């Protein structure tokens, strides 16, 4: 195989992914920031003014900051997996004609989702900080650091899913159903404290629960996260990434036969 500079190649695929998302829209990449702001407006209207959602507790944050701090990381996570699952299949023409390290396709796709949503996340946090003052902006570096294991987790799952999708085409459909289940199985839209005590520990089995909690601790000083669970989350992310790479490598050589 050729000696490839994967950096240049990854960058090209990243560029391509970005353009694929934003070309055709009038405002181009401004849309990346506009979209989360519109979404924020919709959520605050529906949940605060229609549902009158509130987080219990005396010094609890407003519902919108509460939601935003967990929902945006979730969006990055779930969109990365959903989009990259079909990325090998969608690039069948390229894979059939050019020898390239196929992991790059998945990597570029996951990177794009995270980049778009992290940018939106930061923009929204700044808006909320100015508007409500609930956000502890000093927690932002920690929040960004939290994206590292979340990215590893998403990349691991994406690699495995993208490889399996080549063989079993139902996977993308299935994921569309499973991911919302995973979201509602984590305290994204609700506070863990609202659940019956018997159910609460089960939530920790959901890998995203840690991230929902941790982002709120960092940015809202709401709730608590033990160091122990930080360690577990990092180990889980590393293991999932390793498993994803193993599965991908194992199936990689046979993609052409099944695409």
């Amino acid at each position: 195989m050729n000696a490839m500079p994967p950096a240049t190649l990854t960058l090209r695929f990243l560029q391509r992914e970005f353009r694929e998302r934003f070309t055709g829209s009038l405002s181009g990449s401004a849309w990346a920031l506009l979209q989360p702001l519109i979404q924020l407006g919709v959520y605050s209207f529906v949940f605060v003014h229609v549902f009158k959602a509130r987080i219990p507790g005396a010094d609890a944050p407003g519902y919108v900051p509460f939601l935003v701090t967990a929902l945006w990381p979730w969006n990055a996570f779930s969109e990365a997996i959903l989009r990259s699952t079909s990325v090998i299949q969608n690039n069948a023409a390229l894979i059939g004609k050019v020898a390239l390290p196929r992991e790059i396709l998945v990597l570029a796709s996951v990177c794009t989702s995270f980049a778009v949503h992290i940018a939106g996340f930061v923009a929204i946090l700044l808006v909320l900080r100015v508007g409500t003052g609930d956000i502890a902006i000093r927690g932002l570096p920690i929040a960004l650091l939290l994206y590292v294991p979340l990215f590893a987790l998403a990349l691991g799952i994406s690699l495995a899913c993208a490889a399996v999708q080549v063989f079993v085409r139902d996977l993308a459909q299935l994921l569309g159903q499973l991911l919302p289940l995973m979201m509602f199985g984590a305290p994204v839209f609700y506070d863990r404290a609202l659940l019956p005590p018997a159910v609460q520990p089960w939530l920790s089995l959901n890998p995203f629960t840690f991230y929902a909690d941790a982002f709120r601790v960092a940015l809202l000083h709401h709730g608590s996260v033990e160091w122990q669970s930080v360690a577990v989350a990092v180990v889980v992310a590393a293991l999932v990434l390793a498993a994803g790479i193993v599965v991908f490598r194992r199936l990689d050589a046979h993609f052409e036969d099944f695409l």
Partner: protein
Amino acid sequence: MSELLVEARGLGKAYPKVHRSSDRLRALGRLLFSGGDADRISVLRDVDLDVRRGESLGLIGANGAGKSTLLKLITGVLTPSTGSVRVRGQVGALLELGAGFHPEYSGRDNIAMAAALHGLDGAELRRRLPEIIAFADIGHYIDEPVKHYSSGMVVRLGFAVIASLKPDLLVTDEVLAVGDESFQKKCVRWMQDYLDDGGTLILVSHSMYHIQKLCRHACWLRDGEVAMAGDVFDVTQAYLAWHERKSAPQEAQPAVDRHNVEFSVLGMSLDGRSGEQPLLLDFGAPLRVDCRIRSRDDRVPSVAIGVTRADGTPVYGVSTDMDGRTPQRVGTGEYACSLAFDALPLLPGSYTVRVHPLDPEGVRVFDTMERTLTVRGATREFGLVRLAHRWGAPLAGDAAHE
């Protein structure tokens, strides 16, 4: 000896049989957990191939013979099922139409992606971009999405990228066929320059003209196996002969009861050799055809001897009665004759020599016996025979145009 760029040993490729979607699930399970796989359709078997630096190899074969599969294995797009292939140096591959271009993006964007795929960084690309665009020569289409391109334009673009890379090994799969005349010429010229500069080429083409022009060696794949490999002229001629035989009308030869017909062929020989094996002859060599005819009633037969191309196209035929000759009586009811061509003008290829006994009047054909003849030689002349010719001084003035 120069460096070995491609080294394939026992190379084989088999595709899994996938009929239902449950087959895919089973295949996935096998790959993930055990590694063995069962039902497979083999498209390439036991290919040994060496390509050295500076060599030019033409891959020929009928559709579905495994040429593209072999190229994909060499370029690393496919993983071999059996055996191994090792490739050294940078490979520039142009596999089929499209070359991995994305239809939604402009030619310029696709050049950038193709360059990155071939290992060029941004600065290098900027340096070579004008050269690539000039070579492709598709005008303002360079900024249009590739989906609006004609197939010729796609090939132009793909070839332009490869041409600017000057890879150690160039692998192209039947891409010249879609380009127009002037682009084909440009590509052939480029490839000749590239070979003169020490480049290495593996070319798949159905145009024997291109193969013979560009390649010194050829490899003929038939049903996934190497049928023949060696000098380009030997291999292409054998390949063309095979095609001609294949397309020859399969005449049902009436089972001749040789003892009951009036005249039958007892035996024939080419240059004194009577075996069934084809006779190998160099271009322009002499040929002698001998035959013995049995005559039931001891009447003197006429004998016709003819040469056809392997596909049955007649080249030349002559009979004893046309030339006012009679076969010689060599025994009771047995006649023989001999025909000599001093310098056979048949062009390299495969031919059939036929002997027919006719009644003395030269009207009715009674029997047929044939032998295969292969003429060898390195010439690119067209047709069946070399016509006597010479190039002379051009006519003076306007005489040629009148």
